[in-house]
């Protein structure tokens, strides 16, 4: 059975569209939802947890409609992208509150507070006020609050946002562990594809309120590779390099960009291109000073996928 089934789901906030005829089937396991800010990821999560209801279309979560569905809410854990933590409370007080709201109390609650704080690695700071937590610690305590009732489905909205690289690595391990070791189904959103790629191979691309592509990460990667990338190269021997690039089948166009030391290249297979360019430059005795992709982000792919 699909974990989530969305059929032509739409949500309007006045004149602003949150989701626009969004259709997708999400299977059990870890699923990544990738899209730029404002794409509709958070709107989808809030609909899944029942904070908002669809303007149109149907959403089934584990076979049930989520709006005003307490039974379903008890099976879902939600970690929002915004900071909803009470700064005046300690980590332990926060977890006791979230557990209490799930109907837990007494020894069972105490045991679970201890357990989840160890899972996310925040047990050492439970007695401290949340106001003094770092961004990474705040994300951890939010995740701990979301899993305190051992939900079947865990929704993590931009859980890596704002965390430093070390905290990101640790959080990615925690999230993978939540599925692999604890058995939670996880839906995690991000606007950075490679971060999601480190957690799962099942990805849904969301753009302007629509699911523009979904499937295995390799399919998404192929789509990215098919889409021409604009790349700037600066250095010596750019004329020779341009001639060599024109011979390659992945090259769409080559031109100078404000001078003969600067090339603007449009290529279809950026990975192959980046592998070969240094060797080509060295062969002609040139020197590479700078090389970067002008649209090395998902935005261009999204535009490509929706035909804009």
């Amino acid at each position: 059975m699909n974990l989530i089934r969305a059929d032509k789901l739409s949500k309007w906030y006045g004149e602003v569209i949150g989701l626009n005829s969004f259709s997708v089937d999400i299977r059990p396991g870890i699923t990544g939802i990738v899209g730029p800010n404002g794409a509709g990821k958070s709107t989808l999560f809030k609909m899944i947890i029942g904070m908002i209801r669809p303007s149109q279309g149907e959403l089934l979560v584990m076979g049930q409609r989520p709006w005003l569905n307490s039974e379903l809410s008890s099976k879902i854990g939600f970690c929002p992208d915004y900071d909803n933590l009470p700064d005046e409370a300690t980590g332990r007080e926060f977890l006791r509150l979230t557990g209490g709201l799930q109907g837990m109390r007494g020894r069972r609650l105490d045991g679970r507070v201890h357990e989840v704080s160890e899972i996310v690695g925040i047990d050492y700071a439970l007695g401290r006020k949340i106001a003094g937590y770092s961004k990474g610690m705040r994300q951890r305590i939010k995740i701990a609050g979301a899993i305190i009732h051992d939900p079947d489905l865990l929704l993590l909205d931009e859980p890596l946002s704002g965390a430093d690289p070390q905290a990101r690595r640790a959080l990615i391990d925690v999230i993978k562990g939540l599925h692999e070791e604890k058995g939670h189904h996880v839906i995690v959103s991000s606007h950075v594809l490679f971060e999601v790629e480190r957690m799962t191979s099942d990805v849904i691309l969301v753009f302007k309120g629509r699911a523009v592509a979904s499937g295995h990460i390799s399919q998404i990667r192929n789509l990215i590779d098919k889409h021409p990338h604009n790349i700037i190269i600066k250095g010596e021997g750019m004329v020779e390099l341009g001639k060599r690039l024109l011979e390659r089948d992945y090259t769409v166009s080559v031109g100078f960009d404000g001078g003969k030391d600067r090339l603007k290249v449009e290529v279809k297979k950026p990975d192959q291109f980046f592998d070969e360019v240094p060797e080509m430059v060295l062969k002609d005795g040139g020197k590479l000073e700078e090389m970067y992709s002008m649209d090395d982000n998902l935005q261009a792919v999204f535009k490509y996928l929706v035909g804009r």
Partner: protein
Amino acid sequence: MDGEMTAFVSLASYKFKKILLNKRVVAALAVAVIVVGVMAYASTQDVERLQDGTILLDVMFLTLFLPVLVMLYSTSVIREEIEDKSITLVIASPMKRITAYLSYYSSLLLALMLIMGAILTAGFLSFFIPQGMDMDALYLYRDMLLLVVIGCVVYSALFLMVSVIIKRAIYFGLFYAFIWESFIGSVPGRIAEFSFRHYIRSIGAGWIEFMEFGNAAGVGRSFMILGVVFIIIIAAGLLLFRHKEYPC
């Protein structure tokens, strides 16, 4: 205790502490200082002990500080959680929204009764200790305390309900507390009957010998009207909170 009751108690006890310890305690302390100052000063003057004590408590609590202080606290309890998005914890939990609303209301009411009761007690003692305490004074204290509790019950229900639908509920609160309750409630004629103050003071006039109130409705009728309006307001608040979307 089942899960729903556990959730009710967890939220209510958390909110109760938060209400008591938030920055509005400064406003409550300021009111307490004013009340104690005025009552202590009045006690040094040549006054009719029970009559003037009643008038002072009536003016300061039933007319002025009760609606204002209750408004300050009640308009923020749910609205602040919506604004700072911490309401997500409650809305995303399996706790029924009706239970959550009643939990917010219970914690608010308990905290308000404690705060208003403490201020009333301080004001009462600062007047009647120098003037002389006796059973009549204690009866007055008891009746005033009950009137303050009735006021807390109805005013907090109104302002809490309004805060669910109006973003800047405090502006409505200020208008209602100062213009409607204080001004319209004092205008002669039937229009005054459209204020809570009219019925709270009517009950007071039935209970307290020295409470002067010419247009008082009967105690039973006042209780009935306040009770019916309270039930309507609570039901409206429950419905609005339950069906509200929380896009945060």
